[in-house]
């Protein structure tokens, strides 16, 4: 189908984009890479009055180290992330994740800001942001603010971003020494939506796990932090017994709704499989 009619504005600055959002009210939408938004428009699942294109806004395409974080501008594409040496070195979990995001042509246009702002529960970056305790950077008529990823993702396509705010970037803490990370997802076809996925960051002191962050995607209405499973791993040496205990603990952590690809029981089974593979791999890493 064709998209419904809408107005279209090319914003030249963040301030101009905010002014347009304020002036036009709730039914205006920011256009970033458009790889989800355009599909929704073509399917007529969405009918905004106006698209505010931020492709021409300067300063949103940088990846830079700022103190102990790596700041990524909202308009940085998946392809850019995939090619960034800084991301590979300092945010390796994100680097591992990008190849799982959609397909080649989509990765050339789609952006990290768009993906985070949309908050699709089956998307990869929201889970990675929660696993790594990233901060989401917002700007609006009341100024700039930063929201912890865990608080940012509120529900099914729902975030803490106010309708007159723009997501301008995200800050990931630089991985500390002893950190081991793993991303994997199970999908019917590579690049398609995950049936379930896991973003994991474990801190080791020698063979012992001192901290664990496990965030699941496509396992709930938002990225789900598997707190019981995390607790079951901390203090252990990631032996088989610890893996089994963590897998059992997942039962209390996850209550996934079924979808077209898998029912809740299948998703829970796959979540346990992913956890087992993840820990087995990370305990061997040096």
């Amino acid at each position: 189908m064709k998209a419904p009619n809408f107005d279209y504005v090319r914003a030249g600055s963040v301030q101009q984009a905010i002014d347009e959002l304020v002036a036009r009210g709730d039914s205006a939408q920011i256009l970033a890479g458009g790889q989800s938004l355009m599909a929704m428009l073509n399917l007529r699942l969405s009918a905004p009055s106006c698209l505010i294109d931020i492709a021409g806004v300067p300063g949103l395409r940088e990846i830079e180290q700022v103190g102990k974080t790596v700041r990524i501008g909202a308009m940085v594409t998946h392809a850019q992330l995939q090619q960034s040496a800084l991301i590979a070195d300092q945010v390796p979990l994100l680097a591992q994740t990008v190849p799982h995001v959609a397909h080649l042509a989509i990765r050339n246009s789609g952006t990290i800001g768009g993906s985070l702002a949309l908050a699709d529960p089956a998307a990869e970056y929201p889970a990675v942001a929660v696993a790594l305790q990233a901060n989401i950077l917002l700007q609006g008529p009341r100024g700039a603010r930063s929201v912890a990823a865990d608080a940012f993702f509120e529900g099914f396509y729902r975030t803490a971003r106010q309708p007159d705010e723009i997501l301008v970037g995200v800050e990931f803490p630089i991985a500390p020494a002893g950190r081991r990370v793993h991303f994997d997802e199970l999908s019917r076809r590579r690049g398609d939506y995950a049936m379930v996925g896991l973003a994991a960051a474990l801190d080791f002191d020698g063979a012992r796990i001192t901290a664990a962050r496990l965030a699941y995607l496509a396992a709930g209405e938002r990225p789900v932090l598997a707190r019981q499973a995390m607790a079951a791993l901390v203090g252990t040496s990631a032996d088989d017994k610890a893996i089994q205990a963590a897998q059992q603990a997942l039962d209390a952590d996850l209550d996934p709704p079924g979808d077209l690809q898998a029912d809740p029981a299948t998703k829970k089974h796959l979540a346990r499989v992913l956890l087992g593979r993840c820990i087995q791999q990370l305990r061997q890493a040096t």
Partner: protein
Amino acid sequence: MSETRIKTCVTVNGQSVEREIPARQHLVDFLREDLGLTGSHLGCEHGVCGACQVMVDGQVVRGCLTLAAQTDGRRVDTVEGLSDNGELAALQQAFLEHNAFQCGYCSSGMLLTALHIVRNHPQADRDEIRDLISGNYCRCTGYHAIVDAIETVLRGAGSALAQAKHNGGSR
């Protein structure tokens, strides 16, 4: 609500084009309907099939998920332009020889992904080729012929063909 039109200047296959484009018109409709460039095909129209692919500033993109107005100030190359300038010649010949064109609907999009592979992943093995073309649907070939064709070009035309003959067919 009357249709909003947006002034857009874009370079298509080397030619500068300036038009008042409907805001909601996506790039493939603009290329096909307004410029008569019907080589890019319209399949699913929501970013899944890849039949609509074109290059924007040298990068493969989905033509149905790109507004024509978004290409203002940018360079668009289609299968027509890349055929005329010879960039696709080796791939087209290999597709022909391996019977990787059947109905042809996916071919223009598939060729652009193949060109990206030739330019950026010259060392790709068969698994990597399959991964890179995984965003392009082909309902005829079962993909083997397409992977064969791309691999032939990556390894230098002729050598893989000779190898295939030597093996009595590589499939």
